[in-house]
């Protein structure tokens, strides 16, 4: 059970020296799924009622079908993997038939595809964009760099895997992964979303391959 979400202070930029200082304010915010306690108690009540589980599981199945059929990835390209991601979004591979629309605002998105090298300087911004997305939200780590640092693992400036910054649901290996790989990762993600609330917790991420 997570604690209450702290109130976000009004953004007064002149009080802050830089973005890092601004980020320190948000360090206490949970990155897990936020949910309503009232809604949860109501659904638990229905679930414990005799025969009520039919309603809740059917509602869960319906809601998860809706969630998995309209995963909107936020447009977030970091490096060369973004080229393959764009190819996946375009007409030849066409993820729109899976209900995915690349969206230019994190506030309307459900999925973040971390496509590329995450540097230490970029990590606070990445976390910030992730925090702007509404729950429930998912993250796909695309390519060797985002999985583990990749060829830049021994560089001085690279985060050794984006899972040190945000929770990751699907790892897509490759350098860069071709659109087919990413498409497979997105299908894996849809499988995970299908079992989202019904099991009471998130499915474990797929096995990490570097």
């Amino acid at each position, binding site marked *: 059970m997570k604690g209450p979400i702290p109130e976000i202070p009004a953004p007064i930029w002149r009080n802050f020296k*830089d973005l*890092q200082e601004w980020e320190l304010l948000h360090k206490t915010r949970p990155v897990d799924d936020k949910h309503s306690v009232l809604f949860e108690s109501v659904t638990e009540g229905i679930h414990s009622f005799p025969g009520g589980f039919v309603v809740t599981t059917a509602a869960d199945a319906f809601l998860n079908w809706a969630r998995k059929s309209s995963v909107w990835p936020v447009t977030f390209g970091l490096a060369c993997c973004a080229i393959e991601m764009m190819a996946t979004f375009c007409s030849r591979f066409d993820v729109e038939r899976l209900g995915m629309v690349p969206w230019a605002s994190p506030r309307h998105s459900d999925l973040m595809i971390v496509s590329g090298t995450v540097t*230490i*300087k970029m*990590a606070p911004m990445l976390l910030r964009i992730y925090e702007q997305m509404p729950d429930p939200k998912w993250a796909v780590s695309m390519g060797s760099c985002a999985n583990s640092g990749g060829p830049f693992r*021994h*560089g*001085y*400036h*690279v*985060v*050794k895997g984006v899972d*040190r*910054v945000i929770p990751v649901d699907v790892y897509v290996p490759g350098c860069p992964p071709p659109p087919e790989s990413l498409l497979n990762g997105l299908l894996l993600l849809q499988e995970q979303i299908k079992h989202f609330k019904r099991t009471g917790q998130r499915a474990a991420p797929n096995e990490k391959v570097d």
Partner: protein
Amino acid sequence: MSPDDARSAIGARFSGAEVGTGTPLMVTVAPGHWAELAGFAKETLGCCFFSFLTAVDWKEQGLEVVAKVDNLDDGLAVMMKTRLGPGVSTCASLTPIYRGANWMERECWDMFGIRFDGHPDLRRILLEDTWEGHPLLKSYAVDTPHPPYR
């Protein structure tokens, strides 16, 4: 001014300078003559285009600052070098002479920790202000922990 004229002019003006024979024209001077050489290259040799400035870490022999300036009209390129010596990390700034040196010297400070005396605004340019150490020095460990991300 042709490269041969430039070579003889530099040799006449800076007695202690090592002047190379190839292209671009390599000039190595003592750190004390660094800004003077840059001023000479700009005013007398007509090298008005500042190409780049960087540094080399020669471990025990200390740091070496390298800069290249060009005279685009005459096709003359001058590569200026100076050895700071072991343990020394201060150098004269070229920013009063070439404005293009400003960010190059900030990057050099960022990566090698060379303090340029006379630079108007010597801050880190690529890494964040809270970064510890200068990563392109040979003594910098690549796996230096950097909380909270590594």
